[in-house]
């Protein structure tokens, strides 16, 4: 006879676990606790052959329950975490770290700091080397908290400075925190990874103390080192830094180039396009057009008047100069099948006109050039605009009518 249906320890615990998971998904904390109480005995696996891996499961589930349960408190939570730390030495630092996160979420910065320091001093034979990555993280977060302390001291100092007081003790303390923070933050960002918060803080420190070279180097590494995962924010940080430093447009543009490649819909694309449009180099202007068209491919930009004004401005400029109409043609080729329905429907015309006249104005110009004066969007908006006797709409109508032939050349 088959023993598949035989109820044994392993199956019983598997069933128990699935009840716990259901309860968690439905946020029934009491019920989850009830089943977890029955599940914990899977830790006693002395004579069970099966390795269930219960300790990690219990750690994670217990954490969830204690965090959300209405009758639980931080004392219970901390007590539980301490037990979990003793449960699996291979996981010790990870548990410490997650405990610290919870403390931070609860606003207990000091306790978090204590725990980090404690964890940092942990040694356990070869485990210390194996858990090296977690250790670096712990040090990094301690560095982060040091940065927060530094920041606090800095603000105090600035306040006092306004009042005319100078506080040497505060200053010393501040520098102390800076040193501690810098050491740890510098270490972690050497390792390939996504370290946005650490990088920002570190750069902030460096800038404050005037070490711009180091800051630049750090940001360049973070953005351009291929070992690091592609991270749009890295380029944003670099760009912002260069801007603060008053760098040339050329370097600013080069900083944003990769961002455009990774995230064509990024909000900085407006700045990017603005810079590119003004450039003397033809290639850059061409790129600018590409950038702004690409951004407007995304639904989140549909009602962004600024973006539309950028596009309108560039399109207008091209049309007037009568040079490089082929640029528009190239960009429009892949879009002419779906942009009309996406941006220039009659429904949108009505809505845009009602909600945001400037938006409709810019869009109407673009629509009129790309689709001709008889297209739904332009017709509606310009009609409404002229009816309302708004001067700019009359100008618009004239302009588009005058250049009506353009759309034929573009779409042909």
């Amino acid at each position, binding site marked *: 006879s088959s023993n598949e*249906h035989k109820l044994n320890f392993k199956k019983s615990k598997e069933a128990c676990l699935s009840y716990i998971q259901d309860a968690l998904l439905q946020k029934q904390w009491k019920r989850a*606790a*009830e089943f977890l109480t029955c599940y*914990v*005995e899977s830790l006693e*696996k002395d*004579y069970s052959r099966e390795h269930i891996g219960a300790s990690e499961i219990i750690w994670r589930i217990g954490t969830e329950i204690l965090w959300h349960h209405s009758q639980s408190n931080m004392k219970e939570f901390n007590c539980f975490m301490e037990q979990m730390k003793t449960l699996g030495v291979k996981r010790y630092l990870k548990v410490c770290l997650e405990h610290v996160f919870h403390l931070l979420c609860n606003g207990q910065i000091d306790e978090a700091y204590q725990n980090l320091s404690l964890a940092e001093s942990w040694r356990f034979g070869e485990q210390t080397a194996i858990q090296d990555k977690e250790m670096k993280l712990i040090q990094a977060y301690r560095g982060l908290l040091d940065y927060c302390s530094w920041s606090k001291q800095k603000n105090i100092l600035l306040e006092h400075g306004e009042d005319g007081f100078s506080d040497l003790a505060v200053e010393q303390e501040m520098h102390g925190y800076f040193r501690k923070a810098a050491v740890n933050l510098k270490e972690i960002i050497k390792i390939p990874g996504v370290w946005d918060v650490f990088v920002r803080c570190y750069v902030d420190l460096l800038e404050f103390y005037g070490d711009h070279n180091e800051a630049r180097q750090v940001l360049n590494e973070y953005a351009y080192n291929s070992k690091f995962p592609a991270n749009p924010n890295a380029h944003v940080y670099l760009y912002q830094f260069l801007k603060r430093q008053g760098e040339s447009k050329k370097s600013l543009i080069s900083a944003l180039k990769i961002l455009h490649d990774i995230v064509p819909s990024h909000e900085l694309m407006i700045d990017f396009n603005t810079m590119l449009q003004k450039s003397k180099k033809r290639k850059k202007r061409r790129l600018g057009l590409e950038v702004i068209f690409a951004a407007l491919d995304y639904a989140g930009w549909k009602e962004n008047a600024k973006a539309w004004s950028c596009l309108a401005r560039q399109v207008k400029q091209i049309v007037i100069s009568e040079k490089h109409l082929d640029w528009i043609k190239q960009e429009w080729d892949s879009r002419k099948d779906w942009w009309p329905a996406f941006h220039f429907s009659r429904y949108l015309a009505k809505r845009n006109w009602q909600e945001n006249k400037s938006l409709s104005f810019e869009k109407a110009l673009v629509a009129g050039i790309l689709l001709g004066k008889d297209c739904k969007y332009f017709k509606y908006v310009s009609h409404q605009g002229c009816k309302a006797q708004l001067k700019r709409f009359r100008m618009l109508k004239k302009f588009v009518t005058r250049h009506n032939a353009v759309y034929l050349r573009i779409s042909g």
Partner: protein
Amino acid sequence: RDFNERCVQCSEVNWGLTDGGRFYCRSCHNVTERTREVVNTDFITNSRVQSITKGLKKQEKTDGGCEWYICEGFQLVLKKQVEALEALGVCPQMKDEILCNFWRCYLQKSKQAYCKRPAGETVKALSVCGSSTDVDSDPERPSLLHLLSLSESEGDLQTDCSFASSVSKVSESTSVYSGSVDGSLYLMKNQKEKLRMTMPMTLSFCYMALLWVREPITLSELLRFVVEGHIPYLNVFQHFPEKMKLCGLDLKIFCVESWPTYEEVFDKMHELAAFLDLPRFPDITESCFLHPDMLCMKYLMEANLPDELHNWTCRVVKKIGIGEVDFLTLMPGNKSRRKVKYDVLATAVIVVVLKLLFLLDDHYEWLLSEFAEERNKNNTEGGPYFEFKKWYEVVKHSLDVEQKKLDEERAKYLWRCEKPLFYSVKNKSKVLKRRQMVVNLQNQFGKLSGSVQRAEKPNPSSFQLRWSEENTDGSCFHGYSLKGILQEKRGLLTAMNPDYWLCTVKLCNEKLCGHLAHYREVEFPQSYHFVLRLFSFLLRIQPAYIHDEVCMIEHKLFNKKLCKKLKYNTVLRK
């Protein structure tokens, strides 16, 4: 008295007892090693055991423990179980006379006690817990268990001497040990000859004894009581005396982590009965609880079906002869007769009767129900007519509720107990620490469980579903009449349903594939599956086993027609 062997010297059968309790031949004064059986079910002290066996190396025990044999452990287990049965109301003879004798007979037949040890088998105690060689206690590499699985697959090993040497070949740092004297030997013995004792087999013993005295407890009930905790099984070693230290391989023998299945206990019981050379069991007659007529009554009540159906079950039982004494009574060792599962059989009869009356093809029973409903409207005298639909709704609802409760209980079952167990003394502190942590966590999360506290063990009861006729909501169908679905023909009440479908046209060979038929839910009507599910819940067995019995009954019932009919899977006319 009952010692009938011929004396080796003079071939006479004329025995007496010496002062030392040994048999001696009165004719030639040859003294044997056989000792008189002692009526004593208590814990056997080592001195007595040592007088039986020879060549035993005495081990010094520094931890207050004593030497004990595996069979002594099992004896204790059986004692606890039968005491629990007594507390449930079973007759006291079961303990003192029946089970006790069965056990002694087993010990004798399996040569574990009450006999001279066969030559060449010396019991050498391998190193005991706490010896100098430490076992690798890293749970990641259970070398001990590895060793065990090794030994079982190696087949025959002649003596434990060679086993001991093979042990040392495998690994220098491990040594096989147990708290008991013969733990390792026990596991290594060739099972085929001697029917090695296991924990599930203790329940086979209990069932065998219950059957012998014809107690009104079915095997499914017994197993249910075990799971519900009324009969010790899991963690029964807690009750071993302090001096009987359990560790190492003993755990593999006594610590079970699964509930035995009906089939397992049932098959083992029959094997055991044959092994012990038992005679024909006491007759199961019509007045016995285990007779299908009686059990059908019980299950009809529990399934909330009308009492009137009992007439029909009795008719079926009579027609196919499964109520006969010779069919029902157990003859150990008789391989030609099919072994009777009384409870499964009774429920299968009910299923067949339901099929006879309602067809259960997912169409007819509902039509019939509507018809009965119509008739019910005009029914002014007598009791209300039974309608399948109403019954289905009421019973399904209850069944779903109870099934859900049962599933949750199974998931919440606590397997470990307070008494910590460990493979080696080195493990002990780790085990105790873990235990402490588990208790702490249970307390912490138990408090957060809200008002739901673990309910006390419910009192053992024979009925899991209860229906009361006092309920005015019409949820109890015991007293309902079947007239709504019957018709009068030539003065007799017969079923309106003229058809019947067979579960299977051809039966499988049970010896080859273990089943008479192979049940797959999707191949059968849902009403049929529901009915199987209902009884499957009550008996705590898989629907497939009830299906098997149903097939068997159908083939007996329609035997003549089957012989005549062809292989088409057609619906037969009754």
